[in-house]
């Protein structure tokens, strides 16, 4: 159990003397209970958001798909000289959609599920991490869509490209989890943080090279764009999947460091502020 400085709040789950051995014998293992809680949170989140139907889920997929069609219709004329523009756009757009949706859900996760925090003592990070499950499911579906597009366009990805892309997705998920952990506890103290983040996400959409190729900007500006976490993930994914070029080891090290720093920063903020989260609900 975590606690603030100078505090001792300890727990030893095994009781020394309870006159109900049958009840204790029936106790489920903590790992089983935790797995059940995670599954229930994922399932009920899906159900509440999509009205419990796959139709509702596919309806939700229409938003990024429509966005893709509109952007492609407009910008493919502007970047007509780039033969892989459509593929670059779909890779960038779907990865961005996961980033935007995941961070928005994660930011409000503790507040939205705060009613559970005051019910009992359990690891509250589960509430935050499971809140991005819908975005992960959507990302998985979009990965299949991307693969279909690549094959249809005559760019079937090789095994190395798919492995690299899986790594980039893992890094993106780690970044979103790190952001969610940190921002979810801060949101309880600053209740307009979601509005601030909405503005950042809107600006970030244009700051990341989603609808335009990075190459149209002078090279001296690239380093600044790479500081925005979605940028290296989008660029590396395009390189691997569309161009069949695996980025260098140094590039991968940069991305790994980016993901680890985001995740650790989120964990540090969560561990510091999380124990008092219930006091701010």
């Amino acid at each position, binding site marked *: 159990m975590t606690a603030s400085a100078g505090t001792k709040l300890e727990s030893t789950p095994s009781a020394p003397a309870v006159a109900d051995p049958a009840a204790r014998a029936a106790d489920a293992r903590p790992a089983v209970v935790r797995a059940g809680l995670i599954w229930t949170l994922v399932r009920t989140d899906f159900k509440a958001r999509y009205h419990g139907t796959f139709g509702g889920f596919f309806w939700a997929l229409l938003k990024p798909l429509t966005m893709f069609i509109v952007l492609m219709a407009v910008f493919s004329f502007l970047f007509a000289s780039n033969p892989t523009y459509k593929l670059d756009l779909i890779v960038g757009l779907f990865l961005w959609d996961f980033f935007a949706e995941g961070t928005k859900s994660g930011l409000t996760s503790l507040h939205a599920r705060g009613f559970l925090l005051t019910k*009992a*003592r359990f690891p509250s990070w589960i509430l935050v991490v499971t809140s991005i499950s819908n975005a992960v499911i959507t990302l998985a579906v979009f990965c299949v869509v991307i693969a279909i597009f690549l094959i249809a366009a005559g760019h079937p990805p090789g095994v190395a490209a798919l492995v690299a892309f899986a790594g980039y997705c893992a890094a993106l998920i780690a970044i979103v989890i790190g952001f969610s952990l940190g921002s979810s506890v801060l949101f309880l103290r600053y209740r307009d943080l979601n509005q601030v983040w909405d503005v950042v996400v809107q600006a970030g959409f244009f700051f990341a090279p989603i609808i335009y190729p990075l190459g149209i900007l002078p090279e001296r500006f690239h380093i600044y764009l790479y500081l925005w976490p979605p940028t290296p993930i989008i660029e590396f994914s395009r390189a691997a999947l569309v161009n069949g070029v695996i980025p260098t080891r140094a590039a991968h090290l940069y991305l790994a460091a980016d993901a680890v720093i985001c995740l650790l920063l989120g964990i540090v903020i969560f561990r510091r502020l999380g124990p008092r989260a219930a006091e701010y609900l």
Partner: protein
Amino acid sequence: MSLGFVMSLIEVNAVSKAFWIPSVRRDTVREHLLGLLQPRQFQRLQVLDDVSFDLRPGEALGVMGRNGSGKSTLLKIVCGVYPPDRGRVHVRAAVTPILELGVGWNPELDAVDNVLLIGSVMGLSLRQIHQSMDEILTFAELERFANLKLKHFSSGMSARLGYAVAFKAVREVLVLDEIFAVGDAGFKARCEERYWALRALGHTVIIVSHDPRVISSFCDRALLLEGGRIMMDGKAHEIADRYVSMLTH
């Protein structure tokens, strides 16, 4: 504190808790930025001050006190919902709390899904919850509303469901804030019956209540809190009497 050879299930040693109340509340980034040049005054509200007690297996402990005496904060610290500022709480058993009934449901989910959610949080496995689902719904008299979303439930129906889940989830220590404060006479009678069944099985209980009758009838021992400190620790009926005289004098 140690009581002979019987190890306490819960030990609360010198626990203190304070909240800082600002003169102006600022909950947003905008308010903090606009108020940068207007520093706030903070008032320290000492909710609990050097509170110590222990709870032995099978004991039923009542907690009484006026509004603002620190009862609910003490329960939340024992349940691990709030961390104490100072002191130490040692919990050697699984604690099942029934706190703040009526709030704590996902209104967009039906009763079955909410039971699965709250049951999981309270430490039951999915298999255990599914096996107990009918019993839980029957206890709450909500069999007909199993697939109705909670947003259509009355506060009484939600509270009954809360009791039903918690009574099923109890493993060792049950913590109750204002016991049996909901439902009609029939439901209260079932709660009382279930309570005594749990006591007969050896479960340990902490009850917070303003009702002297509840403390005298359902507890062996009680604490009287006043201003965040333990004013008296003794037999339940003595504490109940003292509480009544405190209110009437």
